[in-house]
């Protein structure tokens, strides 16, 4: 028999894989190509010939290394604090009843969905010189501790911004942990502490690790919070890149710094893979193949981990045994659920920290004064009038809306077919998901700079089209991730049933599949919409002046002064976003209870 010719093989591949093509082509052109272009720019000197001049500068410059260190420090501390605070919240959400969970999860998601900028302003309102904290301290005749424009301020803002991500990642893993395992441990003689340490903790570790990784990588690319809540000392790498490009026009040097950032991220990914395995990111199991020879890092990590657990377990047990000697457990009356109380109070405090601050921007926006202060003076709508009457603001809002809708729509059109293909057909699932999700993993600043570099040559800088393309690069991964999760739980036998009942594939899709995944598609759309509506990094490079989006204008304004008019904008954005979340949450519930 003749081998199938190359052409016919290619045709067969095309006829089954066409749903993937648009997404892959788009990301190749709008993501891979510009990033490669930027990286190559970092290897050429001013005359255009190959040289390592930018890298020698990077290594020689004391500024770059200092900024790299502080960026790393900020990311590391943020990760640590996020993980510690997110764990009890995720644990509570995973173990609470359904109704409790549904309410709490909205509160946790609230900051996740509300604009980064709005949240950052909220902290300025709370912790600033005339802020709520200062006012409360004054009542007690004390000076408020300085929590703003220093490392503490950056930490508060960053942890607040990134913790929901961490909670959600952990929750996904914790929900998969069989509750009877801890019960089994206790009937087998383990005290609660031991049962937690030896059974629950190790099983939740993939979630903790994945959450930590996501927070760390995201934190590396953060600059809004350090810029607005930190001091000169808390200058991060992204700010350095922005400075190099905007003020020095030094592409090569900026590219070299970006490469350093990327390398740092890759090293972290590598270590992560060795320690726990990249498959945990998509809900897979931790690696178990650790032998000292094949994977020394993983082996050491596993040893250290089990040693730490053994030590902690022994200590906890000794402590609990001592307590029981003084206060033996009574067989004749119910135990007091001290642990549960502790968990609830800790988790509620943390959830309060997440959900409450944003709402402080609302009252201050009604002030009569010219500056932000607490309590707001009098009541007036003047700032709202000023904002709504200003074409600069309304135009920015309109542009944001248009771009967000365009990006979310494009993201759905590209991402949904790809997700279908990945779940139902694809052979190289992990690799494909990896490729499509790469834009989330890549620090936004690199995408922004790369796109700027590419668009500058073809006249797309300063246009909404360019920005929409940039935001679509970010939207595709979120749509793919959301839809893959939705489609994985979709029972394909329903489609098969429709086929046997005489429906064509098209009609089946229209009348069976689509109605069932509708709420998933809607969620993906909202996700992409919010990502774009709130996006600043790419907007910072691609638009400005007459084409500024809302976040871009808020940012420019905030650099000058955080004024009551900004609070009014923030309040409106907050209400708008909250409404969107509640609507989509409502739609999701109706969708899931109906299907």
């Amino acid at each position, binding site marked *: 028999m003749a081998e199938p010719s190359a052409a016919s093989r290619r045709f067969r591949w095309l006829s089954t894989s066409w749903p993937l093509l648009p997404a892959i082509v788009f990301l190749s052109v709008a993501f891979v190509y510009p990033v490669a272009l930027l990286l190559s720019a970092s290897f050429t000197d001013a005359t255009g010939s190959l040289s390592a001049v930018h890298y020698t500068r990077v290594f020689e410059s004391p500024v770059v290394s200092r900024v790299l260190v502080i960026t790393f420090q900020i990311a590391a501390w943020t990760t640590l604090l996020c993980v510690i605070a997110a764990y009890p919240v995720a644990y509570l959400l995973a173990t609470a009843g359904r109704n409790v969970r549904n309410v709490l999860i909205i509160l946790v998601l609230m900051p996740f969905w509300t604009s980064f900028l709005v949240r950052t302003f909220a902290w300025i309102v709370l912790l600033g010189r005339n802020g709520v904290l200062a006012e409360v301290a004054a009542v007690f005749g004390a000076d408020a501790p300085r929590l703003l424009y220093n490392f503490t301020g950056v930490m508060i803002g960053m942890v607040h911004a990134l913790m929901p991500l961490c909670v959600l990642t952990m929750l996904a893993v914790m929900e998969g942990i*069989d509750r*009877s*395992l801890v*019960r*089994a*441990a*206790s*009937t*087998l*003689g*383990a*005290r609660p502490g*031991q049962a937690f340490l*030896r*059974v629950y903790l*190790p*099983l939740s570790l993939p979630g903790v690790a994945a959450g930590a990784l996501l927070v760390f990588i995201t934190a590396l690319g953060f600059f809004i919070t350090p810029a607005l809540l930190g001091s000169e000392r808390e200058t991060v790498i992204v700010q350095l890149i922005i400075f190099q490009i905007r003020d020095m026009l030094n592409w090569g040097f900026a590219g070299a710094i970006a490469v350093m950032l990327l390398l740092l991220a890759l090293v972290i990914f590598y270590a992560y893979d060795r320690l726990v395995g990249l498959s945990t990111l998509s809900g897979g199991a*931790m690696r*178990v193949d650790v032998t000292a020879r094949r994977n020394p890092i993983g082996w050491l990590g596993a040893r250290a981990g089990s040693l730490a657990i053994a030590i902690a377990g022994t200590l906890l047990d000794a402590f609990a045994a001592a307590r029981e000697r003084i206060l033996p*457990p*009574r*067989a*004749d*009356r*119910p*135990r007091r659920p001290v642990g549960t109380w502790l968990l609830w109070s800790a988790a509620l405090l943390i959830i309060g920290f997440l959900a409450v601050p944003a709402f402080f921007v609302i009252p201050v926006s009604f002030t009569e004064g010219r500056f932000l202060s607490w309590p707001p003076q009098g009541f007036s709508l003047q700032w709202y009038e000023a904002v709504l009457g200003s074409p600069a603001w309304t135009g920015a809002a309109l542009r944001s809306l248009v771009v967000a809708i365009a990006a979310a729509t494009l993201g759905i059109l590209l991402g949904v077919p790809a997700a279908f293909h990945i779940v139902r057909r694809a052979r190289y699932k992990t690799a494909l998901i990896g490729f499509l999700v790469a834009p989330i993993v890549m620090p936004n600043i690199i995408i922004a700079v790369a796109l700027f570099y590419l668009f500058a040559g073809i006249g797309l800088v300063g246009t909404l089209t360019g920005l929409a393309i940039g935001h679509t690069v970010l939207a595709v991964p979120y749509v793919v991730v959301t839809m893959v999760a939705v489609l994985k739980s979709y029972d394909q036998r329903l489609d098969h049933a429709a086929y046997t009942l005489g429906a064509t594939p098209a009609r089946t899709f229209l009348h069976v599949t689509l109605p069932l995944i509708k709420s998933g598609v809607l969620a993906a759309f909202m996700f992409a919409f919010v990502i774009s509506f709130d996006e600043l990094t790419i907007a910072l490079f691609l638009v400005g002046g007459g084409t500024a989006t809302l976040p871009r204008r808020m940012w420019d304004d905030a650099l000058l002064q955080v004024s009551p008019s900004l609070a009014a904008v923030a309040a409106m954005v907050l209400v708008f976003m909250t409404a969107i979340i509640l609507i989509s949450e409502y739609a999701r519930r109706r969708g899931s209870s109906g299907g």
Partner: protein
Amino acid sequence: MRGLRKSYGDFVALKGADFELRDGEFLTLLGPSGSGKTTLLLAIAGLNEPDGGEIRIDGRLATYLPPYRRDIGMVFQNYALFPHMTVYDNIAFPLKMRRWAGERVRPAVERVLGIVQLPELADRYPMQLSGGQQQRIALARALVYEPSVILMDEPLGALDKKMRDRLQLEIKQLHKELNIAVLYVTHDQEEALVMSDRICLMRDGQIEQLGPPDELYFRPRSVFAADFLGESNLLKGRCATTVAGRAKVKLVDGGLVECLCDAALEAGAPVRVMVRPEAMRLLREGERAENELTGILHDTVMSGGTTVDRFATAGGVILMAKRLTDGLGARALPGETARLGFAADRAFAITEG
């Protein structure tokens, strides 16, 4: 265990259950799902707190004692093997928690692995085992520290029929060899009959009847019990006279039958006479029986080793007669009138109400 009560919110899951598990006994909690078996078992294990009543283990009060102080072994329905530990570590877990000296652990683990006949699996992870193997490892883990009682909550529920039959016998065998008390939960009446020394039949959070399998089978105290364990013919009637554990019952359909009864049964009480299908016989021409009924043959169903003939009485009640399948074909044709008979000591009067 006495007067145990438990409610979830407004819903009362357990309404005062009372029983005693004797040393070395195999006691089964049997009941339809939702009858409170798991709730009861969890209370005994210390995994939920009863609202009232008391639990004693080895004579000591344990009602609210935390589970890790009870010295109870529990086998969960889904096995609850720790997925991140090898079989060996799973079984060694309770020993570590009990601070056994290192050199005693390995022999103990190897011993129970031998008992459940899976010594070669020590280094595997639970995910790499079949359902039946996981079940046996879960059992080994509950046995290794030699607790005074083992609780099992529908341990065979997730297995296929063949595996279930095999493990039923194995568990029963183990129970005999090791001489530990077992409290076993199932909703499968056959399983309960095969395995138990005594069966505790539960319904809506209460104990319906507690006794050895044959007592539950032949002398059910309620229609529910008669229905739940095996099949039964139930004839409505009123007790006419009782003499020395036997009653004469006047049936609603007419006719008088004699059957066994409880000493407490009084003349005049409404009863149902229960006759198991295998005690009901199709009578041949001229053959007589202590009790006789007539009916019209409705249909005949052969299910392997046994064949059931179903009859309709004049009053519209369906009667079943079960016999061994013999390959000789039908005894009568549908529509024919036939006489049915049963012995008085194979029928039992259940008090109604």
